[in-house]
């Protein structure tokens, strides 16, 4: 075994007694699942029709698949989230960091090592499930694709957990992240085919929905760069891409001190923005959607695009937040050299702006290559440009606020910062909902202007709403400038130089 870290986990986890317990639990769960399935069939008063097309739920194999899709990713996520965090808490991670293990070896060890007992448990159930699938007449390629997707998805989610684990040092934060990531993953799993969007390929993010249909029906096709491909191919490509970017972040940071972690460099973040926008272009397919949904999808292409770029800008901002110590170095450099604004240690404003420019260039490409979208008055380039600029201001405001939280070195700066921003947006939402007074109809809209929601609306010049939006935008810009000024000034540092003596 070439990887010492992986070997350590295999030694610790795969001792005889643990293996026996894991195997016993796995087989017992298989038995319970079969009993539950029998009960289900009895309730429906149906007989299993081996080899015939029926509902997915009729197949015991499907029941196994669903359970495996829940257990394995969850096991990988829990294990990897605690992999580095627990070592930090035990104060053993420093010793690992001072060995000659490379970042890649650490990644492989922490990704595959901690959940190894889960691999054994689920692996046993997979063997049983394949046997059941063969007996039920489930096509071999369906089973193979299912398990390839399960493995890729589990590794991807394990990688996300490991990346999160490099950022945190407390178990309770790991617990919160666990819930958030798994809820997000669950939501993507349960998403069904989207007819009302010009980006139907996004459906491929959901693997489980695809499986349920595939057992009984033809695998749905989704367009990518105008080529119809089976959805599972796109799912694999999307998951593998997501995993690749996560690997980049982990390898860059896993051997660093927690206070010096910055998920991506500026250029990597920009590369991520370009990549994500290219994927968006690839998924855009206004001609491949049903006629009923066509007009709706086309008219919403701009909104969809802006929503996805909002998420993307937040991702770029969060992955390029500068560590507090490095930010201080940057402040000092900035006083001497203006070129420091391009530094990796700078606050992420410049790179957010470039990511927004990339987004706009992508949309321009879409508009010019799709005459349908380009011709829509609501989504002319100037409207998208204004929308992206508005989103950029609000994202910059939030990201710089988080950067300021980090710079203050308060306890749990990111958790507190994200919490405060969440309270802010929840308040804006509540006010606009409950203060919808007929006497002052502009009020909810005015309140909404405190959020990027205005980017998705169209106001005419001179309208009260337009004035409200402009004022709130101006306020957000002032906030951005003030935060930048505060970050650029930097904290006061003791400047006494030592009179050191060389030995």
């Amino acid at each position: 075994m070439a990887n010492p870290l992986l070997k350590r986990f295999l030694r610790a986890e795969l001792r005889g007694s643990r293996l026996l317990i894991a195997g016993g639990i796995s087989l017992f769960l298989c038995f319970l699942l079969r009993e539950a399935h029998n009960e289900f069939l009895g309730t429906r008063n149906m007989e299993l029709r081996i080899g015939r097309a029926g509902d997915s739920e009729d197949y015991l194999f499907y029941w196994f698949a669903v359970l495996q899709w829940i257990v394995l990713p969850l096991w990988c996520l829990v294990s990897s989230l605690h992999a580095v965090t627990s070592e930090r808490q035990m104060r053993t991670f420093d010793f690992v960091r001072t060995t000659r293990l490379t970042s890649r070896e650490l990644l492989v060890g922490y990704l595959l090592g901690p959940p190894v007992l889960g691999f054994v448990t689920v692996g046993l159930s997979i063997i049983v499930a394949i046997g059941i699938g063969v007996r039920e007449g489930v096509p071999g390629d369906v089973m193979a694709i299912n398990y390839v997707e399960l493995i890729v998805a589990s590794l991807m989610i394990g990688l996300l957990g490991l990346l999160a684990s490099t950022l945190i040092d407390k178990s309770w934060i790991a617990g919160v992240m666990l819930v958030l990531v798994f809820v997000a993953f669950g939501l993507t799993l349960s998403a069904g085919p989207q007819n009302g969007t010009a980006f139907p390929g996004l459906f491929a993010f959901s693997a489980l929905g695809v499986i349920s249909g595939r057992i009984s029906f033809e695998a749905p096709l989704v367009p990518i760069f105008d080529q119809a491909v089976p959805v599972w191919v796109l799912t694999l490509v999307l998951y593998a891409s997501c995993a690749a970017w996560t690997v980049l972040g982990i390898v860059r940071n896993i051997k660093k001190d927690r206070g010096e972690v910055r998920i991506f460099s500026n250029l990597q973040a920009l590369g991520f923005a370009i990549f994500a926008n290219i994927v968006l272009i690839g998924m855009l397919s206004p001609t491949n959607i049903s006629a009923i949904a066509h007009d709706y999808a086309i008219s919403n292409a701009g909104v969809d695009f802006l929503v996805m770029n909002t998420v993307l800008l937040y991702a770029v901002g969060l992955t390029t937040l500068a560590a507090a110590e490095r930010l201080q170095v940057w402040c000092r450099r900035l006083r001497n050299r203006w070129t420091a604004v391009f530094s990796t240690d700078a606050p992420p404003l410049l790179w957010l702006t470039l990511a927004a420019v990339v987004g706009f260039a992508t949309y321009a490409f879409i508009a010019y290559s799709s005459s349908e979208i380009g011709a829509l008055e609501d989504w002319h380039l100037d409207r998208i440009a204004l929308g992206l600029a508005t989103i950029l201001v609000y994202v910059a405001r939030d990201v710089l606020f988080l950067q300021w939280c980090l710079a203050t070195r308060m306890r749990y700066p990111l958790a507190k910062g994200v919490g405060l921003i969440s309270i802010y947006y929840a308040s804006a939402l509540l006010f606009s909902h409950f203060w919808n007074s007929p006497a002052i109809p502009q009020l909810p809209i005015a309140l909404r202007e405190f959020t990027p929601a205005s980017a998705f609306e169209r106001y005419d010049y001179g309208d009260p709403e337009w004035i409200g939006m402009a004022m709130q935008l101006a306020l957000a810009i002032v906030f951005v400038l003030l935060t930048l000024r505060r970050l650029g000034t930097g904290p006061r540092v003791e400047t006494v130089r030592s009179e050191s003596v060389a030995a």
Partner: protein
Amino acid sequence: MIELQNLRKEYPEVVAVNDLQVTIPPGEVYGLIGPNGAGKTTTIRMACGLLTPTSGSAKICGVDVHHEPERAQSNIGYLSDFFSVYDDLKVWEYLDYFAHAYKMPEQRIKPRIEEVIQQVGLEVKHDAFIKGLSRGMKQRLGIARAVIHKPKVLLLDEPASGLDPKSRVDLRNLLLSLRDEGSTVLISSHILSELEGFCTSIGVMEKGRMICSGRIEQIVADETKFRVIRVTWIGEVNAGGIFGAIPGVTDVVAQGKEAIFRFSGGDDALAEIPGAVAAQGVKLLSFGEVKQTVEEIYLKLSKNEVM
């Protein structure tokens, strides 16, 4: 050898390590002394590549730790004050893991594990699970881990914290044997008695600055430009008047039939003092030089700041 050149670490509103400049030659045992918060741990963490310095560099055996961390770390053994070990492994498995992590040649690993287990006195626990070891044994296992790859440089951050007296003696003997084998050791502590008689050089840190650094004899010589003399007598004596009048004597502190004073003259002048005071009717019982300890020098250098 260890070279710290203008090593500096800034945190917002505090400079943890302020332009440190230290060179520790091979075979030296260098004690880093200072109160809590002086910057000792930050210095050691930067020296072994765990922390990136704000500026300056740390070189181990000529290799920059931050430019070529993995190459530099093959020469470093690191141990910190409080730590855990993997309870679910056996003693030999733990050492085997780190031997592989340091990329030791496969054929050297097994004999080396047996060797270090013997060095730290854990032979009877060879196949025992770590969770069954006492705290002292775990600390010894930690030391075994730090030296498993025969590092040329050992960086030890308060290694004796929490050790019982016997384990402290064992640790001292182990480090002495490593020193004799030619390892360079940088060891930090805020308890001077741990380092005295063991280190060949010391550096005194305070508020991130190195206020004094060098070989112990040299520092003692530099800092003791005067000698401290203690005398006792019988009968009634005006000690301040008699001793204070002797050329080169200052700071006479008399209490009962005893006095301590500072003397800045040479050996000949010192030898004449008993005769001179006897001529004035003082019946001396004892007369001798009080040797200053490293601890006293440290207190003097550190302006009596809390240790």
